[in-house]
Every structure is written in structure tokens, then in C-alpha cells.
């Protein structure tokens, strides 16, 4: 199973009420890749990532993590995954240090390992000074960082990060990019979703463009973008640019 892809999605479907959020997504994420998932708002990125990490049951389809069926053996497969979901809360009445410890213990790590890794992670993410503060008092960016620490603490083989850079300041974002880069170089696999094309183009080696619940393009960055920039290619694929001429009345300051 060593050469199986880190993540393989086969024919994933998910409906919410009458709305089809994800309609038949197939995707192969090679082991050791830094994979970007891009798409407009409401494209189904979060839904896809939730189904890939065991947080949301697909209506149809299979999720294979390193060749193992996630939804058939959730307990075994979840130990291989590190997850950072978007738009959910944390157990924010714990301190930052307690929260990372909690995540580590839930993964079955022993006390010494958790303690050592929590200290390392807090230092790497510049949270040491706030380690004893309750997470509820953290800013949005600090919350993102402590959630990332929770995803990393058990050294998973596959990291799935939904919007990891949202609200994070530029210095911390650069630190996180370094951490993720060296993690990929050491053999791990990272999937990130983002709106920021520029970031994905610089950071990732693979990318998939998702819109309206379908994969529009997938492959290495160079394959997908061709001659232009990723952003131009994305706009080509997704469409929907409107000119700003329509809102002439918005220029209140001109008169």
C-alpha cells in the first residue's frame, strides 16, 4: 500500500436538502504532494474536505486514505489524518496548552510525548506567551494557529487544512508555510483550500479547481495554469467576472 495515493476520492456526492453541494467528485492526491484546492464561494470545498476527513457522511462515493477506506474503518483511518476545519468552534474554555494536550491524548499519544510536542508547537506558532490563556480570548488568527497545532500534534501522514491562512497575520503565515513545507519534504502530504490564488501558486505543487460541486481541472500547478497565471486560468474556468461599471451611484465622494 506504500505507493497508494495519500487521498483518493471516488464519485463523492452530497446533498443538503434540495441543494446538491458536491456532485460526483473524483480526485487523486499523490503521497508527498502539497495540494491546493481552489474554488469560488459555495463551490463545495468545505463539503468535500469534511467528507474526506470523516466529519460529514457522503451520500455516495468512497474515500481512500493511503489505500484504506475511511468510511469503512473510521477509527483506524482517522489516526492517519490531521484536520483543520473551517467555520467551527474549538473547546474554547480550555487554555491553548490544554487544547493541544486534549487533541494529542484523544489521538492516543502518551503524556510525555504530548507535553513535549505541545511545547514545541506553541513555540513554533508563537503562542507560548498565551499558552495559559483560555482559547475563547484568542484573536481569530491565534485561534487558527492553535487549531493547526491540534491538527499537527500526532504527526499525521495526511494533513487536511480548510482555509488555514484566513485571519492569520503575514509573519505567522510565513512561519506556517515553512512548517508545512518541511513537513512535505519529510514525506507528509498536505491539502489546503484557499481563495488566494497567488498563495496556492507559490506554495503548492498540485492544484484542483472546484466549482458548483465538480472538479473543473486538476493536476500539477504547471499543468493547470498552462501559460498564464493560476488566477487568470481560474477566472477562465469558473467565469462570472462582471465589470464594475454598473455601480455608478457608489461614487458618492465624487460630487
Amino acid at each position, binding site marked *: 500500500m506504500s505507493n497508494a495515493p495519500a487521498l483518493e476520492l471516488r464519485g463523492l456526492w452530497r446533498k443538503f436538502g434540495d441543494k446538491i453541494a458536491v456532485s460526483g467528485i473524483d480526485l487523486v492526491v499523490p503521497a508527498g504532494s502539497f495540494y491546493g484546492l481552489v474554488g469560488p464561494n459555495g463551490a463545495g470545498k468545505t463539503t468535500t474536505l469534511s467528507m474526506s*476527513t*470523516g*466529519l*460529514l*457522511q457522503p451520500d455516495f462515493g468512497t474515500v481512500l486514505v493511503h489505500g484504506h477506506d475511511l468510511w469503512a474503518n*473510521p*477509527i*483506524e483511518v*482517522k*489516526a492517519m*489524518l490531521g*484536520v483543520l*476545519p473551517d*467555520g*467551527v*468552534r*474549538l*473547546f*474554547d*474554555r*480550555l*487554555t491553548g*496548552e*490544554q487544547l493541544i*494536550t*486534549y*487533541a494529542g*491524548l*484523544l*489521538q*492516543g*499519544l*502518551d*503524556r510525555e510525548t*504530548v507535553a513535549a510536542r505541545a511545547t514545541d508547537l506553541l513555540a513554533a506558532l508563537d503562542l507560548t506567551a498565551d499558552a*495559559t*490563556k*483560555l482559547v*475563547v*480570548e484568542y484573536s481569530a488568527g491565534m485561534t487558527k494557529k492553535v487549531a493547526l497545532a*491540534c491538527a499537527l500534534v500526532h504527526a499525521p501522514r495526511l494533513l487536511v487544512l480548510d482555509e488555514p491562512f484566513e485571519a492569520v497575520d503575514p509573519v505567522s503565515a510565513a512561519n506556517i508555510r515553512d512548517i508545512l513545507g518541511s513537513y512535505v519534504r519529510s514525506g507528509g502530504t498536505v491539502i489546503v483550500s484557499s481563495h488566494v490564488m497567488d498563495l496556492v501558486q507559490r506554495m503548492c505543487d498540485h492544484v484542483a479547481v472546484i466549482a458548483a460541486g465538480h472538479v473543473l481541472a486538476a493536476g500539477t500547478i504547471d499543468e493547470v495554469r498552462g501559460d498564464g497565471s493560476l488566477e487568470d486560468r481560474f477566472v477562465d474556468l469558473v467565469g462570472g467576472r462582471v465589470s464594475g461599471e454598473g455601480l455608478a451611484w457608489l461614487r458618492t465622494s465624487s460630487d
Partner: protein
Amino acid sequence: MVAHLVRLKLTLLRNALRRSVWQVVGLVVALLYGLGALAIVVGSMAVLSVQEPDIRGLVTVLLGSVLVLGWWVVPLIAFGLDSTIDPARFVTFAIPRRSLLTGLALGGVIGVPGVVTVGAALAMAGVWWRTPAALAVGVVCSVLAVATCVIGARATTSAASTLVTGRRFREVMAGVAVLPIIVVGPVIGRVTSGTTITQDLLQQVADAVSWTPFGAVWAVPADVADGQWGLAAARFGIAVATIAVVAFVWDRALAHALVNPAHQKVSSKGRGLGWFDRLPATPLGAVTARCLTYWARDPRYALAVAVVPVLAIVLYIVSPGGGVVLLIGPIAAYLMGWGISADVAYDGTAFWTHVAAPLRGTADRLGRVIAAGVIAVPAVTVLVVASALVADQPHTIPALLGLSFGVLLTSLGGSSVLSALVVYPVQLPGENPFQTKQGASTASVVSQLVGWLAVMALCLPEMILALMSVRGGSVVLGWVTLVVGLVLGSVLLTVGVRVGGRTLDRTGPSLLSKIVAFA
């Protein structure tokens, strides 16, 4: 603008009903219940209106005062106030505050309690049909009374919610809950003892109450009927002043809340790892440690504990020296055991941490049960022993312990199953504790009712044994109750944790997606 707000409230109600069948069922049940209560009020008012000797004034003042008091106090200790149109949502719109207040107040009447109150108030005015002048005044006063109820409820909750941000929550909460009960307690005590109650006493109470904000508005028509125009004017003045004061309080509180959104201050720092250091470094230990930390830090859990001493005081006041106080042990056991029946809902979307981790459902269930048990077992033991000593019936201790532990273990088991099956919207930590969530009522009421019946049914053996032992004064039977309660309770708890764990393994992701949809 006022019409807009009322229409918004109606639209929200309609959409909520469209969203789920259970909402409709819940509303129908509530409506039947409310209409039943209303029918009783209207029927008794019809009888009352021709009753001789004339006690119309007496009854309307007492009943009306209880109604107003209920609107003012109940949201503070129980259900909270419907927050479907939360003033905070209108911060960014340029709505004059006067329109906002009027709209919100009218919106507050929409709903079963509001409709029943309006009906009851009009029925109480209808009592005066034999005296046209009193009837006319009565209708006006009924409208004022409804306004007093609705605006007063908003005033007490918004004033209280500005007080309870921060750590003082528990103390203030207990204080707020205890005050009215201490006032009402002696009255209930006399009613239950049944001997000292006379019409004279009631008349005295009614006379006193009719000068208070709760009763004045209801006494005006009676004064008019008696031709006491001076008294009527004075009490009418009190009624109008009451509305002015509560409207002012609400207005001030709202003005404050709009620019200072509710925000829980929890500025204390954690020291070290707390429970995480003291419990085994396993997933089960971690869940237990997390739950224990939450019992201490999350006001929603603290509330479940804070109710217990209040209840003990109430039971004692109801019948000092009698046996009623003995009930506190079993009741507290039920409250604390059932307290984790919404545990997954309380986690909110943070529950994803459990779903994403390779955590078995049984470890999740057991961790929550142990945390609740660590708090409940000593508390229940102390309450049982203390209540038996207060009632001077120490020989009942084994029977009561058996019953209490039976109830505690059984309700912990029931909670473990229920919270793996049902989630409903609850307050997030840090939200205004006096608001209920849209849709909370239905699912919570139905599941609580079913769960309550199930726990009661499963506890029947120890209940019957305890009753026989306490009634018959048999200590031997008491020890039998203790054994039966512990054994039966442990078996049911084991079954509950197993079944709940297996259920959670299956339902975890779908519970999470439901919680995400609430948020």
C-alpha cells in the same frame, strides 16, 4: 417599521415550521396545552362573573398578579426568552429605538404564551360584563396588563443579562432565582398546610398586592365597579408608572446592549494543565478531564448545579419539619444525571474534535458520565444525609440513598443514549443565558419528556421499595432499596453507555452536521 418587525417574526415562525415536522408537532402540542389552560380560565371567569358573594376583584387580582410575576421571573430561571428577533441583529440598521422597542414588544406577544395571556387578560376583563363602565375600563387595563407582562419580561431579562456577564454569573443567578421564591414560598406553605387559609387572608393578600406593580392594573376595574373612582385612579397611576419604568429599564438596557454586545469575560488564566495532569493520559481520561474543566468553567453547567441548593430551600420552605424535604436527594440526582442529556449539543460545533479523532463512542460516553458522576455522587450523598437529618428521619437514609443512586445511574445511562441520538440548538457558551434558541423548544421538550418517562419507568423498582420503606419505617427494606438501586442502576448505566457509544459511532458525523446547520 413596527409592522416590518412583526411580519419578520411571523415569517421566521413560518420558516421554522416549514423546516421540520417536529416543529409543527411541538407547536400543536404547545397550542393545545395553552388553549386548554385558556379554556379553564375563560370557564372559571364565566362562573366567577355570576358568583355570589362577589369575589371577582379578589380572584382577578390574585390570578393576574401571578401572571405578571410569571412573565417577569420565569424567563430568568427557566426557559429563557425567545430570541428569534434579537435586538443585536438590528445594530447596523438605522431603526429609531422607539420603533424597535414597539416592534419587539409586539413580536413578543406572537407565540403560544403571548396568545394565551392576551386571551386570559380579556377573559378577566369580561368578568365585569354586568357593570359596563368596569368592563370598558377592564378591557383597557387588560391591554396595559399584557404590555406590562411582555415589556417587563424583556426588562428583567435584559437588565439581568447585563449583570451576569463574567464570573459572577453563578451567585447572581442563584440570588435572582431565590428572591421571588422566598417571597412566594411561605404563601405556598400555607396553602399546602390548608388549615390557616381563609378568604380573609386571601383578601388581605389581594389588597396588598393590588398596590404593587403586579396587581394594580388588575384591581382598577374592581374599584370602578365599586364606584371607588379615587382608588381606581391611584391604581391606574401605579399601572401606567409600572409600564413606564419597565419600558425605561428595557430601553436603557437595550441601548447599552446595542453598543456593548454580550461578551463573556473570562479573564482568569488557567494554571498548568489542570485535570489533564491528574487523570490518566488516555482518550477516556482526556474526555473526563475536559468535561470536568467545563463543569467548572462553563456557566451552562454551573447553572445545573446552582439550581439544586435553590430547590432544597424551596422544599424546606414548602413544609418546614415535614417530609417533603426528603425529596431533594432523588430530584437532585435526576437533575444532575439528566444534566448531560444535551452534552453533545452543549459542545456545539467543537464536537468535531471528537468526530475527527479516532475516539470510540463508548470512551466519549463514559468520560462524560464519569465527570458528571464525580460531581453528582458526593453532592447527592450530602443532600440525602442532610435532608434526612433536617427532617429528623435518619432511618430513611439507606432507602433514600438507594433511590437517589438508582435515579442518578439510570438517568446518566439515559442521557448517554439520548445525547447520541438528538441534538437541538442550545446557547453557545458566552451567549446571553436568558435567550432560548429558535427551534429549541420543540425538540428539547419532546426528547426531555420521552427521556423523563423512560427514566421514571426504569426507576420504578427502587421507587416502590423506597416508598414502602419510608412509609412503613422499615430499615431492612431500606437496605434492600440501596442494593437494588445500586445494582439495577449500574446495569442500566452500563447498557446506556454501551448503546449510546455504539449509536454515537454511527451518528457522530450526522450529529455534527446538524449542529453546524444550527450555527
